[in-house]
């Protein structure tokens, strides 16, 4: 019963955060709303006994990713509210209709399985400790795990290249004493 109460409280928090992200005119409020949603999802992971994934969720998403978003928002102008006038006619009504239709379709497609699905969680009790996850990750999925190493290296190199090269070739690097 306590689990149900925790779920309901944080489900409302997650939905409120998502709506704030969707509706806020100022990107800082959007970021705070998304942060609330991501933290609530970490709580759901704990409810689902995925303890290691919950810790990773808090460290990577609410820690690193949202801080990066905040840096970029501060860099490219925080006090600028979005103007809501539309340049393309009917873009907003069509967007709303498409979004509502999409939500209706996925809820309709899933509702049968969710309502009539298994009454409770599987009997073999699953505990997502670091040991259990690492056994699977480094046992079965070693090669894909090594692939993520290349992925992250390439992403870091791409980020450096995007920051370093402008339209007119490499930007000069200031050595901190005014020379380039």
């Amino acid at each position, binding site marked *: 019963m306590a689990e149900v109460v925790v*779920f309901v409280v944080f489900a409302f928090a997650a939905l409120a955060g998502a709506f704030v992200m*969707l509706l806020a005119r100022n990107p800082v409020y*959007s970021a705070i709303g998304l942060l609330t949603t991501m933290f609530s999802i970490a709580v759901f992971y704990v409810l689902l006994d995925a303890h290691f994934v919950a810790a990773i969720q808090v460290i990577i*998403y609410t820690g690193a990713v949202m801080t990066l978003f905040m840096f970029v928002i501060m860099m490219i102008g925080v006090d600028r509210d979005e103007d809501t006038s539309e340049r393309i006619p009917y873009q907003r009504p069509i967007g709303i209709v498409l979004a509502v239709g999409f939500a209706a379709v996925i809820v309709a497609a899933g509702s049968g399985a969710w309502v009539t699905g298994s*009454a409770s969680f599987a009997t073999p009790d699953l505990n997502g400790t670091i040991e259990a996850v690492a056994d699977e*990750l480094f046992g079965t999925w070693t090669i894909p795990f090594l692939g993520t190493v290349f992925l992250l290296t390439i992403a*870091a190199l791409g980020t450096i290249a995007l920051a370093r090269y402008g339209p007119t070739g490499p930007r000069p690097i200031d050595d901190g004493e005014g020379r380039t």
Partner: protein
Amino acid sequence: MTLTAGWFMGLAAVLFALGGAGVLLRRNALVMFMSIELMLNAVNLTFVAASKALGQIEGQVATLFVIVVAAAEVTVGLAIIVAIFHNRASADVDEFAELKG
């Protein structure tokens, strides 16, 4: 009343739809990017809920891979947004029409 995977799946479906609405309705490139992150998080939640319901750990491993890919995607995407902002001084996607013939 006990929790089942369906509760989490239903919530994840609503969060995914809200993220899709954000991509369709917002014009600020940063907020569109946050909406994509929300959609990825909703999918992660379904993975972990299915992992618990089926008693198999693979769903949590898949979630870890999705988190890694999302982190790489965020770094590159934000670098692109900053590079565009250096040239155009705007984060509004309707302003970007360089490829228009």
